[in-house]
């Protein structure tokens, strides 16, 4: 388990709250603005998830797809995402862990070994690969490579996944397990608490790993409900939506700041 990530869960536990993890696509809408956004987010979030854009994503909502397009049009690629994270990290508190989230192809093409090395170099703490699959040889390679450099591999599970799938995922999962709250996609619908609870029950039967919940969490009320059952709340589309609607707005970072500030109020257990 990556130490930075471990720490945030420990700290939150002490404070009787859940963690807030914010997601944005890296280099959206452009490198400079993205950097400002990430710095702003670091003021409110326990950890930050940075999306590595892919033009053929299959599990993203319109909001995230548009963000990917903006980022790619601004010249985003895997190397630049690492550069961005490295730069941001050098300007903010050292203990805020960064997680890279993305699809397998960019990693595969970048080379998995080089990817792990870059994670280390940029001080990335964790990594999520949406379309990796426990049976894929690349999945094993990612897990092994990341483990060697002490970067956590974070697995997604869905409410529709059974115990055997969860068990298999846990074998390659460290720091926390990411439970997808709805049987839909990022940003598309409202959080489904019933599904989340069912999933968490299943997980708890076999593991004590911290659980983060994401997809569909947008309001303080959503955060509040999810905080009752999970160790971390992941908010993505809510932030990205603000970016999409304010790409030319000087107050963009401020807007994100006050949005996150408000969400934080819902973290209490």
């Amino acid at each position, binding site marked *: 388990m990556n130490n930075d990530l471990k720490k945030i869960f420990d700290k939150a536990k002490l404070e009787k709250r859940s963690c807030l993890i914010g997601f944005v696509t890296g280099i959206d809408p452009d490198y400079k603005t993205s950097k400002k956004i990430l710095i702003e987010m670091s003021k409110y979030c326990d950890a930050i998830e940075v999306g590595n854009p892919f033009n053929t994503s299959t599990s993203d909502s319109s909001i995230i797809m548009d963000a990917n397009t903006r980022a790619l049009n601004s010249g985003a690629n895997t190397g630049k995402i690492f550069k961005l994270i490295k730069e941001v990290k050098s300007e903010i508190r050292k203990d805020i862990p960064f997680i890279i989230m993305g699809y397998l192809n960019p990693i595969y093409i970048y080379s998995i070994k080089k990817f792990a090395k870059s994670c280390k170099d940029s001080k990335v703490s964790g990594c999520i690969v949406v*379309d990796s*699959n426990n049976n894929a040889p690349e999945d094993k390679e990612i897990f092994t490579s990341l483990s060697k450099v002490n970067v956590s591999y974070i697995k997604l599970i869905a409410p529709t996944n059974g115990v055997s799938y969860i068990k298999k995922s846990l074998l390659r999962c460290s720091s926390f397990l990411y439970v997808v709250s709805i049987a*839909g996609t990022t940003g598309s619908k409202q959080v489904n608490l019933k599904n989340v609870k069912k999933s968490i029950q299943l997980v708890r039967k076999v593991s004590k790993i911290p659980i983060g919940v994401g997809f569909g969490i947008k309001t303080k009320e959503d955060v509040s409900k999810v905080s009752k059952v999970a160790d971390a709340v992941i908010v993505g589309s809510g932030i990205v939506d603000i970016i999409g609607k304010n790409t030319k707005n000087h107050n963009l970072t401020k807007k994100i700041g006050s949005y996150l500030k408000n969400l934080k109020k819902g973290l209490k257990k």
Partner: protein
Amino acid sequence: MKIPPFKEINPPNKNGYWVNKKNGQVYGGAYISPLLIPNLERVEKGFKKALKDKKFIKGLEEQLLNYIGVNTPILFSEELTDLAGGKNKIGKIFLKRTDLHHDSSHKPVNAFSSCYFAKHILKVKRIITETGASMNARAVAAACAKLGLECEVHIGAVDEEKVNLNRNITELYGAKIVVVHDSTKTLLPAMASALRSWQSSPDSMYVVGSVAGPHPYPQMVRTWASIIGRIAKKQFKQITGGVPSTLFAVCGGGSNLMSMAYPLLKERTKIFAVESGGDGIKTGRHGATILGGGKMGILLGMKSKVVMHSSQIAESITEASGLDFASCGPEVAYLHDIGRIKFLSSTDLEAKKTFLMCSKKLGILPAIEACYVIHSALKEIKKRKNPRENHLIHLCGSGESNVTRMLKFKRENE
């Protein structure tokens, strides 16, 4: 017509990979978010069950014969034979007339089989598919109409605006057309939209239009489609006494190629796949995956050859909307890499000229997709110069939906 039964002769491993024994390279697999795991597991389990279900297979074959009309003729083309140099120089050229299918291409065979499978084995009531102005949506919509299934077709707003024959027929068949306004508003966001829809409705089935996508789709689609080749192989034996010396098929995703090639994989037939060279492969503006510098990559749930710009999937550029795909099915890539299938390409201009030639000389209006293969086949056959050979070209579709553009091309070039 007794249909030769299906036999699995080139199975992927249990995780859905074809493995190149020489270098360990794997092709296929299932690269999807966990949200889709149960959906795919259901399809895979159902597929295994279906293959053993004699009643299912019999019912399916009956509909393929009488509804889709899969028992299409093989035509000895005297005209093409003469164009390639004549019987005494190059042997004989035959055309498999898949253009005579219901809905005028090879696509309806997989589309109908998949929907029939969805209804009778998976017991679902709803089908999801996506389209980029091509034949697949039309074929799936027809199958759904016939089988009483709901049909949801995802199409990018940009593609949808180009009102075209197949799109309109899809609507007449009663499909719900979901217009996708995301990102580029073309095929890729339409696919994402369709997959999202499938994620949130496990009571439906996603139909893939080619031998692509996550396991078990590549295997399943080529299994359904192979009925075309099984019948063709039997017909060819009746006509010529043997198997084809050469087989030529166009390759976008690879479904029409695999439909014919699969039953011949263990025979001595030389198999040629033809890609769209677009403006010419050297220009970089093309639709060729294998010959166009495609590298191993992972997209749409599979690992296969892909044309990319850095790690992003490239746009493919081709006159033929059916070949507008920057990758090919994993089994196809595997068969290329182990040397079983050779690849050729024709440019858009060559294909368009071939369209006019076929209309004028053969009295046949081929789908523009099929024109790439006819052009390359003639070139290759001329080179082979073997009068003892019998060549088989897959005429995989009819060109009604290409008429407007091709007539314009004809008038501009006369």
